[in-house]
C-alpha cells in the first residue's frame, strides 16, 4: 500500500492550463486552416479598372451591366458592349491590361471573367425584381466594387466550386451583405421588408 502511495504524483493545478493552451491553439489552427485549405485563388484573365470606366459613362453601373429587352439581366457585359466604346483597332488608353484586352477584341474571343457574385445553380435571382422594382442600390450586395481600380484574385471553394464572396470573407461567415451573400441574408432582407420567404421564391 505504501509503495502505491509513494507512486502517486502530486499534480499541479497548472496542468489545466495546458487544456486552455490546447483550446486556444486548436481554435487558432482551425481558423487559420479553414480558409487556407478550403479556398484556392485564380487570377482574372486580365485587369479591369471599374473606377476609370464609371467615370467615363453617364448611367453608372447600368451603362454596361444592362437589362435586356426581355427584362433579364445581362450580368457581366459581353464583347459587344465593350465595342460600343472600344470600336477602333487602337486602344483608347495605354495600360498593359487594355493591350491584353485588345487581343480578345481582335480575335472576337469572349473574356472568361470569373464572377465573384455567382450564386449556386439552385438559386433563382432576379436583378429586375431587386434593382428595378425594389429600388435596391447595386452597392447593397456588391459593395464598392464599382470604385475599385484593380480586380482582386477570384477565390473559390475547392469543394463546392463557388465563389468565396458567397460565404463571405469573414472567418466564421457571420457578416452580412456586401461581405457575403448567403441565403440567410436574402431571408433577413425579405423578412425585414415583408417579402415572401417561401422556398420556391428563390429555389424554383
Amino acid at each position: 500500500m505504501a509503495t502505491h502511495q509513494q507512486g502517486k504524483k502530486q499534480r499541479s493545478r497548472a496542468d489545466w492550463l495546458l487544456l486552455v493552451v490546447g483550446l486556444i491553439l486548436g481554435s487558432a489552427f482551425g481558423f487559420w486552416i479553414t480558409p487556407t485549405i478550403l479556398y484556392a485563388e485564380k487570377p482574372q484573365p486580365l485587369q479591369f479598372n471599374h473606377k476609370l470606366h464609371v467615370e467615363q459613362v453617364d448611367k453608372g453601373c447600368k451603362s454596361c451591366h444592362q437589362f435586356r429587352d426581355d427584362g433579364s439581366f445581362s450580368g457581366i457585359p459581353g464583347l459587344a458592349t465593350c465595342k460600343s466604346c472600344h470600336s477602333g483597332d487602337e486602344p483608347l488608353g495605354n495600360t498593359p491590361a487594355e493591350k491584353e484586352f485588345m487581343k480578345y477584341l481582335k480575335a472576337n474571343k469572349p473574356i472568361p471573367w470569373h464572377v465573384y457574385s455567382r450564386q449556386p445553380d439552385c438559386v433563382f435571382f432576379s436583378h429586375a425584381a431587386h434593382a428595378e422594382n425594389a429600388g435596391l442600390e447595386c452597392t447593397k450586395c456588391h459593395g464598392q466594387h464599382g470604385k475599385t481600380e484593380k480586380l482582386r484574385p477570384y477565390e473559390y471553394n475547392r469543394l463546392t466550386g463557388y465563389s468565396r464572396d458567397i460565404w463571405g470573407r469573414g472567418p466564421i461567415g457571420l457578416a452580412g451583405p456586401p461581405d457575403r451573400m448567403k441565403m440567410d441574408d436574402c431571408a433577413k432582407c425579405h423578412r425585414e421588408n415583408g417579402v415572401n420567404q417561401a422556398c420556391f421564391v428563390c429555389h424554383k
Partner: protein
Amino acid sequence: MDWDRRTFVKFAVGAVIGIHASPLIPKFMDDTAIWTQNWNWVPVPEDGAVAYAHTVNPHTGTGAKAKLIDGRVEGLRAIRVEGNPNHPLSQGGVLPADASALQLLYNSEIRVTKPLLRNRSTGVMTQLSWPQALDLVAGNLANLAKNGQAHMAAALGADPSSTTGQILMRLMQALGSPNVAFTPTPRETMALAGLFMMGQPFLGFDLANANYIVSFGTPLLDGFGAPVAVRKAFAGWRGYPKNQARLVQIEPRASVTASQADQWLACKPGSEGLVALAMCRIMIDEGVYDRAIESAYGWNDADGLPGFKSYLLKNLDRAKTASLAGISLPKLVKMTLAFAKADRAVAVCGPGNSGDPGRLYDFMSVLALNALKGNLGKPGGVVAQQPLPLKSLGGALPEAKPPALAMAGRPFGVNNVHELAQAALAGKPYGLKTLILCGGNFVFNGPQANVMHDLARKTPFVVAITPYMDESAGMADLVLPSTHWLEGWGDSTTPFGSAVSCYGLHRPLVKSVDEAKDGGDILLALAQRLGGPVAAALPFKNLGEAMAKRTQAMGDFKKLAEASYWAQKRPAYGAMRFNTPSGRLELSSRVLRNLLSKGGRDADKTARALGVKAGAQTAFLPHWEEPAAYAEGAAYPLVMQAVPSLRTTWGDEAVTPYMVKILPDTVLANTDKLVVEMHPATAQQLHLQEGDAVLVESSAGSLTAKLTLYAGAAPGMVFVPLGLGHKDFGFQVAGKGMNFNRAVKVTSDPMSGMPIWELTGVSVKKVRG
C-alpha cells in the same frame, strides 16, 4: 508542471475542443452538403440572352420552337425544344423524340466531329481533312465512271422528297448510276394506290373533322404520319362532355391505339385489308353506300374484266370472310352499319405496326371502302392534298443505261432498298464497289438489318454521311460528319396521311460541332470535285441555295426560313378530281392494266410474276392477298409483329437516353433485356412461362428476349418492341434490348414491289437466360 501523458491528454482535449470551436468542422460539413448538390446530373446552361427560333424536326415533322441562350463565353446554345403553337399539324405539341433531341445534339460521345478513315483490318480510325476526305470519295467515284462502272456505286438516303434526297438522286443520276434508294415509307404505297384508283398521288385523311374512324391495323396513336397532329385529332374526338367521335381499331393486338379506341376488333394478323373488303360487301348487301360509286369505272364488269361489285358478290362471302379474319360477323355488321350511317366517317390505312410502308391492295381496299361511304373530298373524309409548290433542282437528266439492281424487269419503278441490297450481295446482275449511306442508319434500321450489315461489310468502299457514330458509321470506311437538324439546313415534306400538305424547313440555329457540314453541302462539294456533267447538274454553292431555288414559289426564302414551314391553308373539300384514263374513280385500275400490258406483255403473267396470286382477273381490283408470313412452313409456326411506340422510335433517328429512361418494365427489363409478348395459351402450348428467356428465330435472323404473357396479344403471335437494341449511340442507349429488324424477313409486296415486313414467320424457343 511536467509534460507527461496526463498533460498531453489535457492539451489534446483542449486542442480538439478548440478545433471544434473554429469553423473547420461546420464549414466542411456545410460545404460537403453543398458539394453533393453539385453532382453533375442536371446541366445548367450558361446565363445569357434568351431567344426562340422556329424550326421543324425533319425526322418527326413536328413544328418546334427551340429555346436558345446566347452565353457570353459559350455562345449560342440550344437549351430546350418546345412545340410551335403556330404549326398547323403539331399545334404546339412535341414527341419524346423532339423534346429530347438535345441529348443527341450535345452528346459528345456519339457525335462525329471530323472526317474519319477506318482501317478495315484493325478498325482504327484516323482523322482526315475535308479536302482529303472529299478527294477520296470523288476519286473513287470518278474512277468507277472512267471505267464504265458508275452503276457499281449505290447511294442510300433517308428521305427522297427532301432537298438533300433530291441532290443525292441527281448526283447519282448524273454520275451514271441508277442505284439510289431511300427509307421506304407509306407515302409511296399511298401514292401508288391513289394514282391507280384516282390519279391522285397525294391523299390524306381529314382526321380532325371525322366523327367515325375505322383504323385498319395502323398505329394511329403510336406512329402515324405526323404523330402530334393525330394525337391532337384524338383529343378532339374525346371532347367534353361526351365523345365527339367513335374510334374503331382493327388489329391483332390490344395496342395503345386499340386500348384507347371505343371498339377493338381483334383480327388475324395481316387480315385488315380483308376486313375492309368485308365491310364493302356488307354495305353493298345492306344497300347503305353512296350511290355515286355506281358511276365509277370498274364498279360493274367492264372490258371483259370483273367489276368490283361482282367480284365482291362472287368471291367474298361475308360469313366466311369474317371467320377467316377471326372477327365475329354480327359485331362486324353492326360496326359497318354504324360506319355507313355516320355523317363524317373515314376508314384509315397506313404504316404497319412494324413500321413497314403497308400493302398496296390493303390501301386500295380501304380507299374503295371510303369511296363506298362517299366521303371523298368531304370534311372528315379522304381528301387530296394540294401538291407542294416545289421546283425541280434542274432539268431532266439522262437515264442511266445499266439496269437498276432493284426492281429489274418491273413495269414501274419503286424504291426498294432491300431488293437493291439483295441483288448487290448476290452479284446479280452485278455487285457494288462503292456504297454511300447518307443518313437513315440503314445498318440498324434495315429494313432487314442483317442484309444491310452484310452489304456494308462486303462492299469494298463504304461512305457514311451521318451526324452520329451510329451502326452505319461503324461499318463505313469513311465517315463524314453531317450536321444535326438544329445545326444545319434541311427540309421535309408532307407527313403521311395529313389532310393538308405541309413543307417543313430547318436552318442553322446553333454552331455545328467542329467540322460537321450539312449533308447536302457534302454532296454538292463532291459534285464540284467530280466536275463535268455531275457539277453541271448541281450548280449550287450550298444546300441553302438549293433550298431557296426549290421553294421560290413559297415566297421570300428568309421569311420562309424564319417561319420554318409552308402549309396548305385548309383541306381541299369539294368534288375530287380524278386524273385517271376514264376521268372517273377507277375501282378496276386502268392505269395498272396499261402498265401491266405495256409493250404487248401478257398482263396475267406479269401480275403473277409480281406476286399477285389472283392473276390478272383481279389484279386491277382492290382485293386481298395472303401474307407471305403464312407460308413459312412448320419450322416457323408463329407470326412476329412489332410493337411501335413514340417512346422507342420515330423516323430514322435513334432512341434518346430520355426515351430509354421512360420505358416500362414491359418493354425493357432485367438488366436491359428486351421483353416480348405472347398470349398465355400459345405460351402454354410451347411450354413457356412468364419470365422465360426465349430465342425468337426467323429464316432471316433472330433475337433473344424475356417473355411476358399478355392476354391482349393474338394467339399464335409474338410481339416485339421496335427501335431498341443499338450497338452504338452511347452508353445510355447502347445494349438496351435487341433490334427487331435483325429478326424480320423482308418480302416484296405483291404488285407494288415495295419492301414489306409487317409479319414474319418465326419460332420461339426457351433458352438459358
